[in-house]
């Protein structure tokens, strides 16, 4: 018999290209803020779920054991979840298992990432996620796979680069109002189009930056949540699926693994018509086209139709379906696992009406957060409600 699970507190650190704090310290700061917001101390927490993406960024193998004390997990049931870029949204899903199952009444969920230690560039870590025999000898970078997917997506639906650039303009603009943001900026479509070609059709301003940062939420069972707050945000649906690493055998124009994860989460939350019932969305946007791709996978836009929705302003903060009102990875930054958790935090604050300058215009009651990862293969989705 599964139990209803609430988010009762959220915390986040600054997101920056390079932070002084160690992974443990960043985790501690985000966790402490989330605990304070929930009105709890660590001794009230029964279990901990942590998330961090490739160990290769830090050069610390089995990072989950290393950062454990910063995560508040000493002597508690702790699990680390680990699905690359999908990790940030998978972390509260892991927490949901802890609480929905009836095992625990409170669970601290923390996601942390420091990409800065790896030199000369964190991109280098991604080389080793490719097939070691058939792909790495070709000199792979993760940018290839994005540019190949973006090109296929544009080709299949006749999408222009300028339409995709609108996402970067929107998200970097939204991030101006996020106090933790690394790259909030007022830019134009021309700025994106004229930015350095990195891996055509991907240009510099199409891409989110490498970052350091942490974010956390506190989960509670219904009984405990109602005692502690009048404004719980319910984690009413969770979904996750993975596809194989044979990414070159896949339809690169459509993320089927996101669709499957979304349908799982929607079914659990009783959502039949996502476009009508979802008020606000935080899809994963490490690249501008990815937000569009994911909106389609999330069933919030028809196939190939997300660009038009964006150009029409539907996804602006004052639009009918605000998308990435936080500023997303493109604007707030992309400390991989922490970036996904940042989206969970954003929906928490938006649904409680606490987002200040970023607050969306409509009366948002139901939101969806999604992250993606690895070799075009992971979809993690949560539906949140007030």
């Amino acid at each position: 018999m599964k139990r209803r699970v609430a988010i009762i507190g959220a915390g986040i650190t600054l997101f920056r290209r390079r932070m002084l704090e160690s992974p443990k310290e960043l985790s501690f700061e985000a966790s402490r803020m989330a605990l304070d917001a929930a009105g709890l101390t660590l001794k009230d927490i029964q279990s901990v779920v942590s998330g961090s993406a490739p160990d290769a960024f830090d050069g610390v193998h089995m990072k989950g054991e290393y950062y454990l004390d910063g995560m508040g997990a000493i002597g508690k049931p702790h699990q680390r979840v680990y699905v690359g870029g999908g990790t940030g949204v998978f972390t509260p899903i892991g927490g949901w298992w802890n609480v929905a199952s009836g095992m625990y009444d409170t669970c601290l969920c923390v996601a942390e990432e420091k990409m800065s230690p790896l030199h000369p560039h964190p991109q280098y870590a991604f080389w080793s996620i490719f097939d070691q025999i058939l792909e790495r000898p070709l000199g792979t970078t993760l940018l290839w796979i994005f540019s190949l997917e973006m090109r296929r997506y544009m080709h299949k639906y006749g999408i222009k680069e300028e339409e995709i650039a609108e996402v970067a303009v929107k998200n970097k603009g939204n991030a101006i109002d996020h106090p933790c943001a690394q790259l909030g900026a007022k830019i134009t479509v021309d700025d994106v189009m004229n930015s350095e070609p990195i891996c055509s059709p991907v240009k510099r301003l199409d891409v989110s930056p490498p970052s350091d940062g942490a974010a956390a939420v506190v989960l509670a069972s219904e009984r405990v949540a109602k005692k502690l707050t009048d404004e719980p945000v319910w984690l009413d649906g969770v979904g996750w699926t993975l596809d194989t690493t044979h990414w070159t055998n896949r339809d690169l124009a459509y993320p089927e693994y996101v669709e499957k994860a979304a349908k799982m989460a929607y079914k659990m939350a009783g959502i039949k018509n996502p476009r009508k019932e979802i008020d606000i969305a935080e899809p994963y946007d490490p690249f501008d086209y990815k937000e569009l791709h994911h909106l389609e996978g999330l069933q919030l836009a028809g196939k190939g139709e997300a660009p038009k929705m964006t150009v029409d302003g539907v996804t602006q903060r004052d639009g009918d379906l605000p998308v990435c009102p936080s500023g997303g990875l493109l604007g707030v930054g992309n400390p991989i696992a922490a970036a996904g958790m940042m989206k969970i935090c954003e929906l928490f604050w938006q649904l409680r009406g606490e987002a200040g300058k970023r607050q969306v215009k409509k009366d948002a009651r139901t939101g969806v957060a999604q992250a993606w990862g690895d070799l075009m293969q992971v979809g993690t989705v949560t539906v949140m409600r007030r």
Partner: protein
Amino acid sequence: MSQKITNYPGHEITHEDQKERRYLDIEYKFVPRYSWAAGVAISRFLDELKEGRIIARKCNQCERILVPPRMYCEQCYRPTDQWVQIKDTGTVNTFSISHVGTDARRLKTPILVAVVDLDGASPGMGILHNLGEVEPSNIRIGMKVQAVWKQPSERQGAITDIRYFKPLEA
């Protein structure tokens, strides 16, 4: 963040801080060495590459011809049934012009990369490879291409035994 919160934790190290060495930086280099067994399916695939051929595996249940080959069908979850020789020609599924190397350093000469759907395999069965003998501005999705092989004496049983794929027609 929440408007209820006024102070966000964390201290940034700026590029200038780094240049001026205003913080302690501990450097470490880890140089591991690995020796991978290529596995049953890929060992055969590599042996065939050395001979200038591309081989796939067929699953008789779903009838898919799989490349890269695998000894099991991940969809039917049963052993695959037979080796199938496929062609060294194919179609560009998608492509990119990469100005960066593996560590994001900028390249003087861009690398042309593509997913090539191989003829003789099931539709959409592509592999990652490079393109060559083509102007970047002339590459198109749907373009027919053919493998350009290394000389037999230079082949090592590696994916790079194919130098790149080039357009079939000028």
